[in-house]
Each structure stands twice: as structure tokens, then as C-alpha cells.
């Protein structure tokens, strides 16, 4: 059996399914709850300071509204955008969650953790980003 190649932070891209023209612009001032973000409670048009990205092109495509975009962790960091890896997300999402993954309902924390693993999800954190419009343009290219 051919096993899947392990994703490497130093060289492998992260993919994001989004609109054809541009990547959705996050709002640095929006609520920073990670569980709220992953669980997508507010649905379309919700305000979030995060952008979800996946190790898998095919998964990103499932969330696409017309295009799959890509970036690298080193590019993200060079623009002072925060990066929360999948392993960090998984470690934060236990019980009632820790840090920005703290959430009143532990079941919803657990569901979010399962999704993060199934989707190979990582987060880009724009809470400290001054100009999210130009920054998203700089860090993403079409895949």
C-alpha cells in the first residue's frame, strides 16, 4: 500500500479553497475563538480573524468557491501573520479547550478537533495584522 507523504512545514504548501478573484479578507478585530471559527456557527459572511488552510489540495477544493489558493508557512511568517499548526490546534482542543480554543461547550470543542484532523486544517492568524487586504494578496497565489 502506498502511504500518504507526511506534510512538511518547511517546504510543503498549504491550500485554501476560496473565491475565484481573491481570498476572503479576515477581520483582525473579530472574535478570536478558534472553536467558533472551525465550527462555522455564523455561516456565510461571518467575521473571523482567521483563515483556514489545509495540507490537502483536494480538501481545499471541497471548500472552494471557484479557486484553490496556496501559500507557504515561511511566506506567512515573513508578513507577520500568525500561524497555528494542526498539531497545536489538536493540543489546544481538549476538554473545554485552552487559550483561544477555550469554549463553554466541550462537545463542540471535540467536534472541532475531529474536523481539524479530518481536514488537515491549519490556521493563519490575522489578529495582529494591520492591513489584511494587502497581506492576503501578498501571501496567497493561485494553485
Amino acid at each position, binding site marked *: 500500500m502506498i502511504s500518504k507523504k507526511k506534510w512538511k512545514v518547511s517546504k510543503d504548501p498549504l491550500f485554501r479553497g476560496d473565491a475565484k478573484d481573491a481570498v476572503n479578507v479576515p477581520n483582525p478585530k473579530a472574535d478570536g475563538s478558534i472553536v467558533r471559527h472551525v465550527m462555522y456557527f455564523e455561516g456565510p459572511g461571518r467575521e473571523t480573524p482567521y483563515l483556514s488552510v489545509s495540507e490537502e489540495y483536494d480538501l481545499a477544493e*471541497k471548500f472552494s468557491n471557484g479557486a484553490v489558493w496556496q501559500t507557504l508557512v515561511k511566506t506567512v511568517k515573513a508578513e507577520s501573520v500568525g500561524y497555528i499548526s494542526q498539531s497545536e490546534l489538536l493540543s489546544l482542543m*481538549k476538554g473545554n479547550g485552552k487559550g483561544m480554543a477555550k469554549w463553554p461547550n466541550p462537545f463542540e*470543542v471535540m467536534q472541532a478537533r475531529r474536523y481539524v*484532523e*479530518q481536514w488537515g486544517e491549519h490556521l493563519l492568524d490575522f489578529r495582529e495584522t494591520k492591513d489584511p487586504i494587502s497581506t492576503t494578496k501578498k501571501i496567497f497565489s493561485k494553485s
Partner: protein
Amino acid sequence: MKLHSCQNCWFNGLQYGALGIAVGYCSRHKKILNVADGTSCGLHLRKDLSVSRAKEVSEIHKKHYNSDCVVRLLDGVCYEADISNNEKDKNHLRTDTVAEVVVDYGEIGSTIESLAQLRAMPGARAELAMLSLGRGYIANCVSRNGKWTSGLHLYWWSRRRLAEIPEIKVEDLRSVGATQLSRQSDLTSWSLVMLRLTFIDDIAGYASQQNDPLGKVHSLTEQAALALDSFNLRTLSKWLKTEAAPQLDARLSHARYADLANKFHTEREGDEVQQAAPADTYS
């Protein structure tokens, strides 16, 4: 796997996340869902949340999407290619035994009979359909001033298989996601057990509203999430046997179940006689 799409809705008994077949079926719109990961409607209720949270989220959701038809998430427009109401397609779908019951749910025989058929079928997909459609069945009964015991048998069937870990066959999976096949199978099995617990939480919630002792059981999904910090199925099964089952049995033993079932049956028979009375008078 968009969480506000038809795959994650109570009314689609054929799919949930990676579990299911290529198409879904909406028991409200009575349509085959050709692209259930990309469509939705204003009636959407999320499978992956408790009943109260699913209803809260649904209030936001219905502001974005029309309730009258199945629409594409991208633009809110109904496309004929996304759905099918064609009898030829439905007949083809009926060649799958679970799908046959799901397609005929509410059309042939009573809904509880269909749920009983699903309960008797082996396999994870049959349980998914029973739990998913069952949540809607009980919510509907209770919203019409029905008793929580309208879901009594459904509850008992789920209690009996509480600690059984469902086997996910390769053909039950729609995708492997970012994981390896065996891991996806485990995570899917986990998600189905959580749906089972969510279903029991729903019933306990309705029992609580009607002051039944079963309602004293604190949310099993929340307890499980606090007790288990990894997706290990063996640990989950042990927790279900040693922690969850005793709490349920302390409030609803087999003897009490039999007693409630008999009372419920007698009341229903009484209701049916009363409903039949005006017709008899006319004839």
C-alpha cells in the same frame, strides 16, 4: 465538507461527513441531493450539534437561504442539476436497502415503522439514517405537544447498542480526507457514536422538559468530551459501558421502559379511538 451543507442536515439520512453514499436524500423536499456538500436550504438543522444549538444556528442559517427549495451554497440559487425528483432516479436509489427506506420515509407506512426497519438493518449507514431521521421525528412529535415517550423505543434501541462501536466498511466511506483510510474509518465511527449520544441527549432534554427522571442525565456528549481526550475507540467503548450506561439505566431500567411503553401504547390506542369517533358518527 461544508458544515452548513445538506450532508450535515438531520433531513438527509444517507450522508454525514465521510460516511454515506454518493448522493443524499432530503426527506423534507423529497429530492435526491446530487451535490449534498454544496447545497443547503433554510430548513437546515446540523447533525453535529445538540438540538438546542442546532436550532440556534438554524436561525442564522435561514436568513441566508430559502426554505422552499434546495439551493447552491455559492449563490443561493436552485439548480435543477443539483437535485432529482425523477422516479427513475429514485428507483435506482432504492436498489440500496438503506436508501429504499429513506426515500420512502413518510410516504409508505408510518415514519416510526420506517425507523424500526432501519433499526433492524445491520451496518453504520442504517444507524446513521435511523438517528438522523429519528431526531427530526421526535422533535416534530414534541413540537406538536407530544410526549417525550414518542421517542421511547428509539431511545431504547440506541441504549441497547450504546457501547457497540460501529464497523465502518470501505464502501461506507465517501472520502478519506487528510487522514489514512483506517484513521478516517475510526474518526467516522467516532462521529456516529457521538451522533448516537446526541440523539440520547435530545431525548433526555425532552424528558427533562416533561419532568421525567431520564432528564436528570447530564449531556452525555459533554461528559464524553470532558472524559476522553483522544479519538480512541476502545477507550470510548469502555467509557460508554462503565460511565454512560449506568447513568441511563439508573433513570430508565428495562422494567420502567416496559411500563412506559405499555402506557404509551394504551394512550395512543385511546387517541386513535377518539379521532375515529366523529367519522363513525357521520357514517
